[in-house]
């Protein structure tokens, strides 16, 4: 398990370095996407599937948005021979994904049956049993959000802070140094 984890981490580091050093914008975006999907695999290996979902969603969205932003500036046209190859690879990948998805759906718990009924030592049952006595919070959602998984909430707050910082910086018309003094 550790070896696979190390491999994925090395893959991510290489992807990050490529994305910085390449001069081709599209290659850089694809390399960044590979790093993101690598982080998702890392979270899966560390047995945090709920966290692994977030990078997948973000990466798909970012890839689409970033490629859309670069289309027309730095995009390569592909010849017909390579197009057939690419299409067949894509079709095989989609079918493979479908096979995995069908298999995975069979493993999902029944509707209304929580995971902790199946896995006895799931964290959820621990939270439910000890939430009130350990945190004093009657609302178990808040107890999980702010006590058991406080790191997670801090990360969310940081994301929000970064978002507003980016919006304020990008949407400002003048930079602070260029601004003439009005006194």
């Amino acid at each position, binding site marked *: 398990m550790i070896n696979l984890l190390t491999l994925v981490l090395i893959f991510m580091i290489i992807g990050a370095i490529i994305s910085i050093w390449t001069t081709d914008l599209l290659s850089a975006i694809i390399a960044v996407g590979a790093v993101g999907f690598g982080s998702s695999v890392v979270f899966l290996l560390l047995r945090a599937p709920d966290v692994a979902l977030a990078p997948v969603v973000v990466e798909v969205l970012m890839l689409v948005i970033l490629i859309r932003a670069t289309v027309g500036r730095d995009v390569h046209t592909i010849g017909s021979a390579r197009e057939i190859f690419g299409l067949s690879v894509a079709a095989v990948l989609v079918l493979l994904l479908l096979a995995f998805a069908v298999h995975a759906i069979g493993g999902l718990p029944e509707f209304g049956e929580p995971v902790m009924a199946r896995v006895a030592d799931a964290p959820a049952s621990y939270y439910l049993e000890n939430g*009130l006595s*350990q*945190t*004093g*919070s*009657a*609302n178990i*959602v*808040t*107890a999980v*959000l*702010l*006590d058991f998984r*406080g*790191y997670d*909430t*801090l990360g*969310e*707050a*940081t994301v*929000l*802070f970064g*978002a*507003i910082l980016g*919006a*304020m910086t*990008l*949407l*400002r*018309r*003048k930079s602070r140094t260029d601004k003439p003094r009005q006194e």
Partner: protein
Amino acid sequence: MKETSTIVKTISRCVVGFIFLYGLYIVCYGHLTPGGGFTGGVILASAFVLEMLAWGKEEALKSLPFRLAKPFDSAGALAFLVLGLLGLLLGGDFFVNVIQKAYPGKPFSLFNAGIIPLCNIAIAIKVCASLFLVILVLSVLRVAAGGGTEDDLTTQEEE
């Protein structure tokens, strides 16, 4: 911009206070009833946004000035971080609920759960200020021609 109608203005002025009060309730009772800092903060911000939509950004900036919203945003995030670091300093681990460990309150009462209500309040201040700022910045400062600059936000407060 076209003026909103008298009905919208009157109703929104009546309702804004109640929305704000409801947001405060959601934040303060976050550890007892459904809700918490994020939800409550969004409701608090929506009170200011409603004011902005109905009365224009000048009125909303009178309630929550631009120069106050920016420090609120940072202060909320910083307060949350400090509460986490408090656990690291006094309890040995990041985000240890030191207050609850030292003074365990009565369950289901308002003053218990240690740092959780304080975290909720810090997050609420942060979320409220940043959501208001995002909406304000996106509606006032525009990259396209004809948009305002940051000066539009700062000069109006001085009047």
